[in-house]
């Protein structure tokens, strides 16, 4: 089997609990009561993109749709607005994933940055169509932060799959 260059080892199968738990954690991070802050990264979009890249059989467009609706209700936006954006983002990641997994984490982040930026622009255009006002240039920081966090998220979320298949008591990890 040809291994992608960034991955030095064959990964264990993902635990369902961990996958769905991490997505729900992302949702809770989005739900934190911080008020209208434009520069905060969209954790749900980030985690959906991550799992769509690594577990496309489990996390696809349907999951993106459901989480989008949850975010829509939480943020009191038009129902389906975030759902549409997440679907587009996940579709882009699904189309690009075979190529993306061969790159290092930092180059993955730079290639995902335009996608994250487009997601925010798409949301903004929909809001502006609904006669909203521009929330300020700090909005640019949101996709940048998402791209910066990508390598960290990737290491953390893949860590459980990098454990040894058999537990060895003499090994520290």
């Amino acid at each position, binding site marked *: 089997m040809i291994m992608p260059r960034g991955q030095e080892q064959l990964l264990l199968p993902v635990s369902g609990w961990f996958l769905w738990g991490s997505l729900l954690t992302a949702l809770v991070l989005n739900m934190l009561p911080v008020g209208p802050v434009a520069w905060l990264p969209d954790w749900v979009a980030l985690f959906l993109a991550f799992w769509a890249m690594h577990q496309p059989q489990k996390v696809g467009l349907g999951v993106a749709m459901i989480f989008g609706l949850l975010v829509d209700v939480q943020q009191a936006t038009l129902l389906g*607005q975030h759902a549409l954006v997440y*679907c587009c983002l996940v579709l882009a990641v699904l189309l690009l994933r075979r190529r993306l997994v061969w790159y290092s984490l930092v180059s993955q982040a730079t290639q995902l940055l335009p996608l994250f930026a487009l997601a925010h622009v798409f949301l903004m255009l929909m809001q502006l169509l609904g006669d909203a006002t521009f929330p*300020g240039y700090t909005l640019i920081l949101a996709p940048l932060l998402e791209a910066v966090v990508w390598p960290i998220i990737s290491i953390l979320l893949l860590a459980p799959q990098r454990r040894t298949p058999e537990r060895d008591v003499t090994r520290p990890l």
Partner: protein
Amino acid sequence: MLSQFVFFTCLSLFLMFADTRFEIAKTLRSSIATVLAPVNRVLSMPGSFVNNAAIYFESQATLKESEQALKQKLLLQSQRASQVEVLGSENAHLRKLLKLQSNLATPSQAAQVLYAVSDPYSRKVVIDKGSNSNIALGSPVMDAEGIIGQVVRVYPLSSEVALLIDNEQATPVLNVRTGIRSVMYGRPGANTDTLELRFVSGTADVQAGDELTTSGMDGVYPAGLAVAKIDKVERRTDSAFAKITCQAKANLGNVKHVMVLQPTTSIIPNIMHDASQGADGKKGTKK
């Protein structure tokens, strides 16, 4: 995958369309909101815990200071309150003489703010009471300082309140000094959110510092509640209207405890019904 994408895109576009028009989207919305409500309740706990801890550790000096200030305020208020009683009875008497309908007392209930909506394009808060506590759509919401907004969506366990500064949120107001009525609009901005009185003539008698209260003309807000104060009046030669910006009485960036009032006349559904019927009627005549 592409067919799936087309399906989900169409579904979300349909939902966006349905959200403002059909009952099914409302049902979907309120069921999702009910699922999310307990999570929001848990998430709002650390905030209130931190607040309580901050109060606990506040120094005695600041507490004494604030107590002094509050006592002074109470003194002033009690003076006014005694006047209000006299004035109230006098007013009732005069109204009886004039055979005017007496002012109705508005039933109200206290609620707590769960969170401020994090969508940067709107200014809304979600409170912890919903249709289970008989919160009505359109209810005015106020805090200790004055009106903060209006209930725009009601879920079983929570409701959404659009703040005065939410996009195009309109509040009918009355200038206390001159008695001129106008409508105040909110507009969220990048750095500062604005409240402005639109379509007030450039020659109208409006001054910075004028107090604005609710006018009670809309059948929603009870009359005479403090709303805002006029901040700046710019009279421009290139426009027939003055640009008037206001400052809300309540601190809209940090609302915690609110009062939800019943709409003065619970006729909002009827108005909406009539309006939609009227629109249908127009369409009918066009055909």
